[in-house]
């Protein structure tokens, strides 16, 4: 177990294994997203209430899923980094933050675009959208804190503590925002918590969610590899790699 953790922690080993995983992740992501979006956009039936505008869920829902999952994975990576001092974990956390922020923004943007035909306004203080907005601020905070330190190592530690504090707070924030929303809007109509969704709509959504996850893993692996090369540029094995590649 310990040997495994430290082996996994070696940037060189990670660089090697991720090279073999990457093509699989990419092809899985492309395939799932391609099939899911064609199915969802062209073949799934239109919603009886919202018509075709509901089809934005095929981007909105996976993006919202990822936005939250990435924060959790970032906090787990931060914990691994803080407890076992594994630098690869921090590199992964560092590249996950902008990706998570982007996904949160995509979820907010698509939610807002979806709001226009549904509510007739670009923005409504809906519980989910509000939680998403706060999540975006949490991401911005983590990214800004990491960047604020002149010492990269201290910035990494500070960002790790903040992501762990943030992940403990996310359920509390979500719960309190939900409570606040029901208090102010007793007759709540939330478009994303539908009682039943026809199976024909579900399948493409499932594919899209899985596709987004595969995309997330692929892009995290890829960007972590870049980060490894950048941070370990002076190391022997990276120099050898560069010499071999040139």
């Amino acid at each position: 177990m310990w040997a495994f953790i430290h082996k996994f922690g070696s940037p060189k080993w990670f660089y090697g294994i991720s090279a073999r995983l990457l093509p699989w992740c990419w092809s899985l992501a492309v395939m799932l997203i391609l099939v899911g979006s064609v199915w969802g956009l062209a073949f799934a039936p239109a919603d009886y209430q919202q018509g075709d505008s509901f089809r934005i869920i095929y981007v909105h829902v996976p993006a919202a899923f990822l936005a939250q999952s990435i924060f959790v994975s970032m906090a787990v990576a931060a914990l691994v980094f803080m407890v076992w001092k594994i630098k690869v974990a921090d590199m992964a956390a560092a590249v996950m933050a902008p990706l998570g922020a982007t996904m949160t923004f995509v979820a907010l943007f698509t939610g807002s675009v979806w709001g226009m035909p549904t509510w007739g306004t670009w923005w409504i203080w809906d519980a989910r959208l509000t939680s998403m907005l706060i999540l975006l601020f949490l991401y911005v905070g983590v990214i800004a804190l990491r960047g604020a330190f002149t010492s990269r190592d201290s910035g990494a530690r500070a960002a790790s503590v903040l992501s762990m504090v943030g992940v403990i707070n996310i359920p509390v924030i979500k719960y309190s925002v939900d409570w606040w929303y029901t208090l102010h809007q007793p007759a709540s109509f939330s478009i994303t918590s539908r009682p039943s969704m026809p199976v024909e709509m579900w399948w493409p959504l499932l594919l899209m969610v899985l596709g987004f996850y595969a995309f997330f893993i692929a892009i995290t692996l890829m960007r972590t590899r870049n980060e490894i090369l950048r941070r370990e540029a002076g190391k022997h094995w990276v120099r050898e790699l560069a010499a071999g590649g040139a």
Partner: protein
Amino acid sequence: MTARLQARNLSCERDGRMLFRDLDLAIGPGELVRIEGPNGSGKTTLLKILSGQLGDYEGDLYWGDAPLSRVREAFLSNLVYLGHATGIKTALTALENLAWYQALAGETGSEAARLAALREVGLAGFEDLPVAQLSAGQQRRVALARLELTPRPLWVLDEPFTAIDKAGVMALEQRLHDHVARGGSVLLTTHHDLSAQGTLRCIRLGGGGEYVPH
């Protein structure tokens, strides 16, 4: 238990720069060790690691026979660390400052002991003034009064001679040698030339992390 601090295979890399590598160092009763090296060679970082403030290193630290991380509380109870900043609150009087430091060690202490410690560093008559009204050198002496006040075997001092006048430097130097002579240990960095009295060992930190003991 002996008051012996040991570092084995100590390496420190900060932001991709190797400050020192595979450093072995031991300091025990009756020893005075001086860390030397040009600016930016990692002297302060090494002192911070050796005083348990910085966990950012590879290698092992031992206090007595036990790993430092396991006996941290016991280690800190036996350590006085004086850094670049004095750690003295200028809005408080010298006495109030010392009272807080005594309490941090877990003892209430006595006013008489604090007065005696201030007398020892030449601050008699300044006990009840806010430290802000004292000169830089006098403020430094308030910090040095902690050496008198809280008896600890291991002193880790980062540039202790800064801002002190000639007489003060001599007195402090004598104080360090006395401490060592009585079986205490002192680990310090300084640009000041210590008189070669008693045992003095030097650890040299240089560029690239090589070190040359002599």
